[in-house]
C-alpha cells in the first residue's frame, strides 16, 4: 500500500534529479561566458571534458587515479582497523582510557594534515606519507564511535551473558562487537570522505604521482581545466568508497528497524 503510493513520486523525483543535472551542466557550460568570466577562472564543461580526454591520452591519468585510489583504500583500511581496535580496548578498560585519553585528545585536536610535511621528511616521496596522513585522519571518527558504542551497552545485557557463564571473549564477540556495529558504520561513512582528504594533502606536499600531484601540476601550468578534472576524479573516488560502505552497511545492519521496514 505504502510502496504503491511511493512509486510514482520516486519516479518523479528521479526525473527531477536528472533535469537538475542537465540544468547544472548547461549553466556551467554557458553562464561563465555570459557573465564574461574567462576560461582560466572557470573553464566550461566541454573544455574540462576535452582536458579529461587529453589527460587520459597523454598524462597517464588512469595511472595517477589508480595510485590515489589505492592509497585512499590502504589508508582507510588501516585507519579503520586501528580505530576499531583502540576503540574497543579503551571502551573495555577504564584504566587504559584514563591514561591514554589526554594523548588521544591532543592528537585529535592537532590538525592531522599538518603532519604531512613531517611524514614526507620521514619517508620521502613515497606512498607512505600519503597513506599515513589518511590513517591518522580516518582513525578518530572510527575510534570515537566504537568507544562510545561500547560504553553505551546496557550493563544488564553483559550481566545476562555472564549469568549464562560467558567468558570475557564471549561477551566481546557476542555482545560488545555486534552492539558497536551501527555507530561503527556511522564512523566509517565519515572516515570514507576523510580518507580522500588525507591522501590528497600528502600528494600536494610531495611526490610526483597521484591526482594531488596533477592538481599542483595543473596549478603550476595555469591549466584550470586539469585542476577541475583532478577535483572531479577525487570526488568520484570518495563517492565510490562511500557507496561501498553504505552497501556493506545495508547488509550488516539489515536488522535495524528503519531498514527492515524498507525491505518488507
Amino acid at each position, binding site marked *: 500500500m505504502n510502496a504503491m503510493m511511493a512509486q510514482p513520486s520516486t519516479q518523479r523525483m528521479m526525473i527531477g534529479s536528472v533535469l537538475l543535472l542537465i540544468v547544472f551542466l548547461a549553466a556551467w557550460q554557458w553562464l561563465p561566458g555570459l557573465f564574461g568570466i574567462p576560461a582560466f577562472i572557470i573553464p566550461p564543461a566541454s573544455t574540462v571534458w576535452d582536458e579529461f580526454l587529453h589527460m587520459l591520452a597523454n598524462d597517464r591519468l588512469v595511472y595517477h587515479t589508480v595510485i590515489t585510489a589505492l592509497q585512499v583504500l590502504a589508508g582507510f583500511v588501516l585507519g579503520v582497523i586501528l580505530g576499531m581496535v583502540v576503540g574497543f580496548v579503551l571502551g573495555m578498560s577504564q584504566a587504559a582510557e584514563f591514561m591514554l585519553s589526554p594523548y588521544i585528545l591532543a592528537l585529535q585536536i592537532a590538525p592531522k594534515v599538518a603532519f604531512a610535511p613531517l611524514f614526507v621528511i620521514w619517508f620521502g616521496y613515497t606512498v607512505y606519507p600519503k597513506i599515513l596522513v589518511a590513517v591518522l585522519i580516518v582513525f578518530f571518527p572510527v575510534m570515537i564511535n566504537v568507544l562510545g558504542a561500547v560504553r553505551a551497552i546496557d550493563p544488564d*545485557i553483559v550481566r545476562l551473558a555472564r*549469568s549464562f557463564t560467558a567468558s570475557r571473549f564471549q561477551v566481546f564477540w*557476542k555482545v560488545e562487537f*555486534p*552492539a558497536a556495529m551501527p555507530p561503527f558504520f556511522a564512523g566509517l561513512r565519515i572516515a570514507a570522505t576523510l580518507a580522500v582528504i588525507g591522501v590528497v594533502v600528502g600528494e600536494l606536499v610531495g611526490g610526483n604521482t597521484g591526482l594531488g600531484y596533477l592538481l599542483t601540476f595543473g596549478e603550476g601550468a595555469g591549466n584550470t581545466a586539469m585542476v577541475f578534472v583532478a577535483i572531479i576524479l577525487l570526488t568520484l573516488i570518495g563517492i565510490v568508497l562511500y557507496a561501498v560502505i553504505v552497501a556493506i552497511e545495508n547488509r550488516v545492519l539489515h536488522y535495524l528497524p528503519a531498514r527492515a521496514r524498507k525491505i518488507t
Partner: protein
Amino acid sequence: MSAIRLEFRAVTKRFPAQRRGDAPVTAVQNVSFTVADGEVVSIIGPSGCGKSTLLNMGSGLDPATSGEVFVDGERVTRPNEHVAFMLQKDLLLPWRTIRQNVEFGLEIQGRPTADRHRIAEELLVKCRLQDFIHHYPHQLSGGMRQRAALARTLAVDPAVLLMDEPFSALDAQTKMVLQQDLGRTLADTGKTALFITHDLAEAIALSDRVLVMSQRPGTIIEEIKVDIPDRDNPMERRKSPKVGPYVSALMELLHIDQAAA
C-alpha cells in the same frame, strides 16, 4: 518433602559508601530461606529493600558480604549453569532473530547447533511464538518480547529461575496473559522459581509461598503460604475469594495504608 533447590543461608550484603565518611549501606541483612524443588516463591517488599540484590547474589553475579547461597547443594560463587535470570527488560539482542536470541545461552554454553535449534523451536512453540522464529525483536510487541525472554531463560534448562519483576513493564492485560503463560510453563516443566515483584496480586496468583521483606536493611519479616488451588492456572486463581484476604494481609505487613495516609 522434596529436595531443596535454592537456599539462602544468613546472607548479608553491604555496599561500600558512595562518599567518603558515609557508613556503608546494608542492603540485605541476615536473610535465610529455602525454595524446594518445583516450588515457586515470591519476594515482595518496599522499593529499595534489596530484593534485586538477593537475585544478583543468587545468580552468582554479586558475591554476598557474608552468608552463603546454595543451588542444588552447591555453593554459588560465580555464574553457573544451574541458574538463569530474567529481568523487567527483555534484554533481547536486536541483531539476533528471536530464535537466535533464545539460543543465546545455549550458544555460550557451547551446545551443538542442531540441539540449539531443536530446543529453541520447542520452547518457541510453547511460548506461542512459532510464527515469529525468524523475526527480529523490534518486530514484536512488548508481551511477545518478554515471552521470548522467558523462552531464552528456559532454554538453558536451569534448576532455578530467578525473575526480577519480569512483567512490571507490561500493560495490565498483557501482564495477566504472561502470568498465565508463566504459571502453566512452570507447572509443566516442574521448574523451581524465585520471583521478585511488587505486585501483591501477582505474587499471590503465581506462588506457593510469599516472603515479605522489610525496609532497608532488608530482611524477611514474614512468610505466607498461599493456600489456594490452581497454582498452574493464575487466571483461575485470581478469581478465588481467598485472594482478597491475602492481599489485605500483605498490605498490612507492608504498611501500605500508612504510606498513603
